[in-house]
């Protein structure tokens, strides 16, 4: 592998990421699957990087989930997104930061559509005015939250307490990076590193001391989509996509998987459980799975936050083996205690996949 070949491509696909004053829009579902992530993002931006980030309590879904399931029409989606822009403008912000990768894809698609077809933008302005009386300005900058963490990865590394190194062997941890399809596949120039060799997560891992693995099915979708997954009978297709990736990455013995989409870590984490139940296969060492992390969780780990504050207890594939490798201390007994110390309940152990 000639890494200079990749670096050349990474240099070509660069984009502007706003440096401060973000208007944050949340994901519909991430709070359920990875409860600590968005909170950690806000905490990092406010406490560690001292940035101004604001979210309006009355902001809504971008409707990406409905749009990609063919339930919501594009006109409706555009109007809902216009309302988000209106809230942003009213609060005096110009930089949009999205938590969800599908949101990022949808906002990019809408901004591109308006750029090429200004009459559509005019129409949407009318819709919004009629429906809510609001007016909006198009954001100056649209970034995904992972772009922002990428931009400040050096600062996070310098303020961080730990590196992505196996403190027992001294070697860098081996990481698989997985980009959400809506990040760079739709508009490769809007993603750092482009579509073939995306760099946003690779840059983070490299800066924080880890090693990125390039394995054959690296580019393959995890199978989330929306349409195929929502109907139970179709999930065989989705799970087969993730299984293909796991089978391909297994010989490389990765220490963890890093993702930047709400759906991908959910799939890559939960499908390891489903595959173990359906076929008895596990992909990690000693009957464990390969831990799946979001970039906020990883940044939080580097900065030394309590793993249970990051929400790592709800991962179906236990993250403890990875914490042990890095040397992050954690209190196993308080894993299933809530904020007030009350027991929140422990899930039943799977048949094959080791659970702690």
């Amino acid at each position, binding site marked *: 592998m000639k890494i200079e070949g990749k670096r050349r491509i990474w240099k070509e696909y660069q984009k502007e990421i706003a440096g401060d004053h973000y208007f944050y829009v949340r994901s519909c579902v991430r709070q359920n699957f990875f409860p600590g992530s968005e909170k950690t993002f806000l905490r990092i931006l406010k406490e560690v990087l001292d940035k101004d980030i604001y979210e309006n309590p009355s902001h809504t879904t971008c409707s990406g989930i409905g749009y990609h399931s063919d339930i919501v029409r594009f006109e409706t989606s555009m109007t809902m997104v216009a309302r988000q822009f209106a809230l942003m403008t009213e609060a005096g912000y110009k930089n949009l930061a999205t938590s969800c990768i599908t949101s990022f894809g949808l906002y990019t698609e809408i901004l591109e559509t308006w750029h090429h077809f200004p009459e559509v933008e005019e129409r949407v302005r009318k819709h919004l005015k009629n429906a809510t009386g609001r007016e909006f300005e198009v954001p100056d900058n649209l970034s995904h939250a992972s772009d922002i963490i990428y931009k400040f990865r050096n600062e996070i590394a310098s303020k961080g307490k730990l590196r992505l190194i196996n403190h027992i062997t001294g070697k860098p941890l081996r990481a698989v990076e997985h980009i959400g399809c809506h990040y760079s596949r739709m508009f490769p120039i809007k993603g750092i590193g482009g579509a073939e060799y995306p760099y946003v997560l690779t840059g983070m891992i490299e800066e924080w001391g880890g090693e990125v693995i390039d394995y054959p099915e690296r580019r393959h979708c995890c199978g989330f989509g929306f349409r195929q997954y929502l109907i*139970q*009978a*179709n*999930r*065989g*297709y989705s*799970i*087969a996509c993730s*299984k*293909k990736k796991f089978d391909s990455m297994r010989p490389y013995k990765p220490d963890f998987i890093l993702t930047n989409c709400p759906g991908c870590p959910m799939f890559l984490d939960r499908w390891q459980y*489903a*595959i173990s*139940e*359906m*076929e*008895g296969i596990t992909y990690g060492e000693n009957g464990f799975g390969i831990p799946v992390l979001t970039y906020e969780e990883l940044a939080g780990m580097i900065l030394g936050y309590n793993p249970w504050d990051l929400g790592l207890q709800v991962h179906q594939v236990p993250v403890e083996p990875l914490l042990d490798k890095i040397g992050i201390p954690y209190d196993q007994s308080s894993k299933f205690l809530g904020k007030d110390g009350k027991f929140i309940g422990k899930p039943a152990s799977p*048949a094959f996949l080791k659970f702690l």
Partner: protein
Amino acid sequence: MKQFGYTILEDRSIDIDRNDQRIREFLSLNDPSINACIGCGSCTATCTAGHFVDFNIRRVHTFLRRGEAHLLKEEIQKCMFCGKCQLICPRGVNMRNLIISINSAIERMG
């Protein structure tokens, strides 16, 4: 094992790394003309059986050359040995001879 209401779909790609090429190699030694196929489809166009049953002789021949041997045995039952495919082939592939040989090849290989 648990059932969740769906099954993990199998990869349907032709995997040259895993396919068994022995039948093809055996037949190719016998009659090298089988390698000259360009996939023009003249054989299938003229095939007597192919006009009435789902039998695509060009496809069967291509599967053979890719090592997808598991499909062959059943498919070639449909051939009527009229020989028109051999008459028309612009590359001189001994198609009829090939079909006859496949059975003996499968028997040898098991």
